[in-house]
């Protein structure tokens, strides 16, 4: 057992975009290894969105003969539930990726490596995109297979809605990760529950005008409310509402900034209180 030592540089350059991309790719590789070797994990990612979609699809079939707007836009509820899952899966993707590192007590190894905090976040967001595509993609496939509903019929606006909801999910996911880092895995339930706080005021299945007058201004502070209002506009009136688009995009920027700042604060808190090497199951 004798070491074979190489002289000279054995490492790639450590600065610049290529170096950052390599480290983010390493983090994604770590989580991809985990996902790809566990079919129950992969199935469960698509399972919940698919079951929820099926429920709303049957409700649509039941209500359609007596409901005017469903006759005009039969995919109303299915589209809504699929887009809601973009938000939910986007948030879960960030939070669960972080929780996975805490479960495996790997944060210490990661934070003594050359991985920067911004790269750690970028890795979380990339995994969120992959998890969302797998989860919602599975549900979209079954929506087409079972009910001949294609969410892609929304066309170009679908890309906007997807990106806007994903970004909002990221910001909530980062804030939830920060809280788990701050209070430990006892706060893990937040990963599953936090998003439902915004569900009633996001107008997923009903217009914001349904909400009490005092609650409506609160709803308009959420990007999700603008997206779902926009979805209804596209489905029922065939118009893309640019006002809602710009409002959602602006709010996303604000919330993402808050999410990143909160996560940074939590990491700094963990560094001050020695939690990065201690955190675990």
């Amino acid at each position, binding site marked *: 057992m004798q070491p074979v030592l190489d002289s000279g540089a054995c490492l790639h350059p450590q600065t610049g975009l290529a170096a950052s991309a390599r*480290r983010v790719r390493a983090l994604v590789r770590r989580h991809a290894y985990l996902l790809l070797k566990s079919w129950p994990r992969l199935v469960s990612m698509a399972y919940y969105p698919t079951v929820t979609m099926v429920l709303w699809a049957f409700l649509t079939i039941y209500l359609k003969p007596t409901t005017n707007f469903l006759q005009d836009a039969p995919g109303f509820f299915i589209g809504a539930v699929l887009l809601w899952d973009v938000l939910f899966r986007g948030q879960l993707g960030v939070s669960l990726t972080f929780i996975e590192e805490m479960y495996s007590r790997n944060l210490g190894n990661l934070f003594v490596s050359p991985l920067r905090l911004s790269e750690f976040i970028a890795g979380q967001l990339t995994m969120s995109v992959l998890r969302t595509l797998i989860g919602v993609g599975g549900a979209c496939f079954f929506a087409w297979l079972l009910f001949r509903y294609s969410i892609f019929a929304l066309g170009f606006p679908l890309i906007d809605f997807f990106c806007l909801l994903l970004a909002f999910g990221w910001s909530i996911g980062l804030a939830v990760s920060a809280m788990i880092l701050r209070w430990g895995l006892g706060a893990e339930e937040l990963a599953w529950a936090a998003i439902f706080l915004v569900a009633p005021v996001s107008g997923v299945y009903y217009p914001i005008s349904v909400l009490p007058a005092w609650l409506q201004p609160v709803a308009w502070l959420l990007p999700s409310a603008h997206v779902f209002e926009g979805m209804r506009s596209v489905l029922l009136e065939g118009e893309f509402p640019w006002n809602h688009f710009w409002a959602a995009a602006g709010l996303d920027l604000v919330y993402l900034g808050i999410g990143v700042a909160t996560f940074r604060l939590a990491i700094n808190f963990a560094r001050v209180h020695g939690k990065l090497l201690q955190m675990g199951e």
Partner: protein
Amino acid sequence: MLDGVQAAADAAIVVKDLRKRYDEVDAVKGISFVVRAGTTTALLGGNGAGKTTTLSMLLGVLTPTAGSIAILGCDMLRDRYRMLPRMNFTSPYVDLPRRLTVGENLRVFADLYGVREPKQRIAQLAGEFDLAGLLARPYGNLSAGQRTRVSLAKALLNRPEVLLLDEPTASLDPDIGDRMRTYLEHYQRESRCTMLLASHNMGEVERMCDDVIMLREGLVVNQGSPHDLIERYGRENMDEVFLDIARGGTDESELGAPTPEVAA
């Protein structure tokens, strides 16, 4: 180099007045020391003496309350990302992802450190650490001793110039422990790597270390070579010196020991 830190030209690690306070507890109370480049130095002390806290601050995962740390001339509190690719560490208290195989874990960390030709480097380390038969096995299925070997392999992926080792041979049987020490000694000699080692194995310290820094209750209470310390305390071996220091039965000021500041 850090402002105000007087260090020898061959210093690899320079710690100056380092303090860490958790709420009401002073875990590290203003320690200063220098680790010479290309040497192996032990950080010794009983439980709660401040060893892991000090290592954590050196690694940048714990923010000091006060003081400064320079590693190979790099201010670790301001610019640690410049130094981290040239360092590594291992600790039995930090795990690797358990559901990933040994090979997958090593590949992820090889990429994080930017190792050129990672497959070859992993194969090389697998050969050196007898891990070839374990590469396809999940890390979580390994014995404690096997995990320690994997963690050591991970710590050497980037051929570090500074290696921080927290109980590097814990859980290893005497045979494997001895082979690991031989490997580390050889690596240190050949690469001129600087090693800082926290250990409770005094035989390991006597064998591997050029210098010893003794901590008690967050303070450096003595330092010197193992031979010097054994002589200074009038003991037979480092085990006895350790007991003297950990139990606080000796007044170090009466031993004529060099103070950390003088040594630095």
